[in-house]
Structure formats: C-alpha cells, structure tokens
C-alpha cells in the first residue's frame, strides 16, 4: 500500500484500520488504538504520532468529523465520504486477493 499523493485513492494499512475502527461507533484516539490492537491481535501497535497525523489528515480530507470534545479528549465519527472510500478500498483489496488466489490455483 502506498500513501496517496493528493487524495486518498489508496490507503496505507494503518489508515485502512483507522477507518475500519469508526464503522460501528464514534471513537477517540485511544479507543482507535485499542480497536486496532485487538483486531490485528497485536500485529499493529498504533503509535500516537501515526494516529495523530492520520486523524488530522482524515479530518481535513472530510473522511472523519469531530463529534465531541470532553476536556482535551476529542471523539470522531466517520463521514459518508469516509465510508465510501473505505468500501472502495475493501473492493480493491478483494480484487487483489481474488487475483492472487486465481494465480495460485493456476500455478498448481
């Protein structure tokens, strides 16, 4: 996965999981990190630097929006644009996986 230069045509793996975290509920930063840790079984340990940058970028690109500020804690929710980009990325990954499986079968 490569970082898109202008828009978010392709998401990095961490970006993909950050969007996934918001599908069911609104979250703050530490919730997102806990979700990804649990979902990837500790394979991806989200750091504050990466997450802070991604949240800021997603907010500026309109994929996430702030819902609540409690003290210094901010909670975000996914937007329709965020869901659409997530769905497109899932579809792209699904096609990649199908191609890989097809290639593996023909190789056998």
């Amino acid at each position, binding site marked *: *996965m*490569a*970082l898109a230069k202008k828009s978010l045509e392709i998401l*990095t*793996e*961490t*970006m993909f999981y950050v969007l996934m975290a918001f599908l069911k509920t609104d979250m703050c*930063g*530490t919730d997102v*990190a806990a979700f990804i840790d649990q979902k990837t079984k500790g394979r*991806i*340990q*989200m*750091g*504050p*630097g*990466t*997450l*802070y*940058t*991604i949240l*800021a*970028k997603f907010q500026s690109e309109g994929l996430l929006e702030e819902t609540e500020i409690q*003290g*210094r*804690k*901010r909670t975000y929710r996914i937007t329709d644009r965020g869901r659409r980009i997530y769905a497109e990325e899932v579809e792209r990954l699904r096609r990649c996986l199908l191609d890989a499986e097809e290639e593996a079968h023909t190789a056998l």
Partner: protein
Amino acid sequence: MKHRLYLPTFLPVSFPDAMETFLEDMAKKGWFLKKVGYFLSFCQFEKGTPAPVRYRLEPIPDTVRTPSQEMVQFYEDFGWKYLTPFSHFFFIFVAENPDTPEIHCDPLVQAKGYKRMCRNFSVFGLAALVLLVIFLGIPLYHPSFLLERPRFSAFALVTLLAFAVLILWSVLRLWKIYRNLSQGNPLSHHKGYLNILSLQTIVLALFVLFLLPFSDKLVEWDENDQITQSLTTVEEPLPYVPLAEMGISPDWVQTPYDPITMGNENSDSNYIRSRTNFLAPITFHISQTAYHTDPNLPAVATSMTSYYGEMSNSFLAKIVGMDLANLYASTPGISGYKMEKKPLSLSGFSQAYYGDLLGNAQILLLRQENRVLIVHYAGDASLKDHVEDFAKLFTQSYTPL
C-alpha cells in the same frame, strides 16, 4: 538540591536518530533531559536513577514553538510525555515505560511530517548558502585582497566552505530520511553520535579560532611577508621608471618628505614595498613623490605609483590588474566617475591600455601573461610617450627584497 548538568550537543537537527541515541545513553547513566536551550542546543539534564527510557524527536507540524495542549494530551494517553522543543524543527517526547508502543508504526505516514520539515530546512539552507556565496564573492570583487591577505583569505575561504558543506550535508540527510520513510523503511532510532559530534566540534573550533585573535595573527603573518625600504637604498634592478625620466623641474625636489613643512620625517614617500607569497611570488609597490620648493605652491609637485606583480597564473594577473587599475582610477570625492580605457597597440603584451583621469592624472596597465604592471602618474608628462620605457621593464627579471 537537584544535580544538574548542562551540555552543548552540537548535534545538527538533520540527525534526529543520533540525538535520540545520545539522550538515551545519558539516561542510562542517570542523566535525564529536562530541556534544550535555544542557543547552541544546550541540553539541561537532571540526575536520577539510571533507566532505559526512550526519547523520540517528532517533526514540528507547523511554525509553532510549543505543541497544542490537545497534542500533548493525545501523546500522553499513549504513554509519551512531551519534554521540550529542539530547535525550530522537533518536539522531544519521552516514554519511561518499556511497553509503550512506538510513536510511529507507519513510515509512510511519518514521512509526511519530514516532508514539510525538509522543505522548510531547504529554504533555510538555501538562504545560508546565498549568504556564503556573497561572502565568497567578495575576494572576486576585490581580488588584490587575496594577494595582500593570502593566509587570512585562505582560512576564511576554508571556514566558509566547511559551513557550506555542513549545511548541504544536513539538507541532504533530511531528504534521505524522508526518501527512506516514503519507501516504507522505518526510521532507525540508534545511530552513533560521537563521529558527528567530533566533526561538529572541529568546525565550531575553527569558527571560534577564526573569530578570536587567530585571525589577527594571520593578518600579522600576512603583513610580515612584506618588506618596505627607501627607494634610494635598493641597488637591485627594480620594475619602475624613475620620476626624473618623466621630466622633473628645477623647482621640484625628490626627497623622502616635504622639505618645506618637514612634516612626517619618519615617513618616506619614496619607497619600495616588496611582498611575496604563494599566490604572487613577486610583487612590488613603488611610490615616488617630488615636492615643490616654492612654499606658495601645493606641496606635491608630481608623483608616480607603480605596482608590478608576477602571479601564479595569468588569470590572477588579469583580475588583479583590472582591480588595481580601477582602484587607482577612483577619484576621491567624485563618485561614479568612470575612466575611459584606451587600448594601446603594443606587441608581445596580452593587455595594454591607457586611461586619462580627471585633472592631470593618468593610468597605464601592461600585462604579459602572468606579469602585470599598473602605473598611476600625476604630472605634466604623458604616460603614452613613455610606454616603451615601461614595456622595457618586462625584459628584465626581478627578485623580491
């Protein structure tokens, strides 16, 4: 009372990994960073129990000197405590718990922070290089300075070039970090810093030596290269045409000082100054003055200043000749006056021209490859009528005094 330690790091901002390693090594010895000073990056440490804490340098997102409270809280929620800014480019965070996750887990996302920083640092580096180029251009604008102060010039040149190399080195290093990150390679957090510190210290020492009286010493040594003698005491052949050959009046006398006012008896106005150095093995500056004997007339009746040089190469002879000719042509009190150069047809010379200044002053420039002669004459005779006499000076060889 808390034990405190202040250390200048001299580690450039382009080596965040080396700075992290340095701070972690200090923590292992029980010295914990408290803050970094603005000038010379003075680090303030406090004594504690040695511990394997981690320090991380985060590129500053914009032009602020302190992070937002929200950012500080965000990092703290993950176990990273904000400490201090480092220069204009980084915030330093510390994690005391070894289980705290790394600040970054995605090099491509981390690259974003470095890209902004690389751009800012490149602008800063470019501005510094422009200033250096201006400094380096001064000797080219006034090349005879190189001959008068060869050691000082060489030292200044080397010091400035060293700074230029350091700045370029830093800019290239930052872009290399950015390139590695954007290719998906995580940033290393362990890098030796002693070699970087040594290099930085040497450059700084050179700079301090340059500012301290060492530069005066160089000037002094440069000045010791020259010998000044009264023109009458030298018997060896010298590259000049005596004033008397230009024509002298019975009302004039060529004495070391003004015979009427007897002013400044210690200063001989008919002298030769010989200088030798690696850029110009032989140079002579010859001054001749004749005075009126009539107290009602101006003291100086006629004068001639000659500069003869044998340079290490013809290019140097050319630019020094032009520089001195322009210098001799400048008329005090008349700014913007431009002397008109009239070429002379003289075979065997690479350059030959004559110039008429305001009043009765004239200039002659002759150059034969790496040998150059510039004459400034104020008197009734015409330099053009004596060009052959000056050209003959090139048929002899001279030795420095």
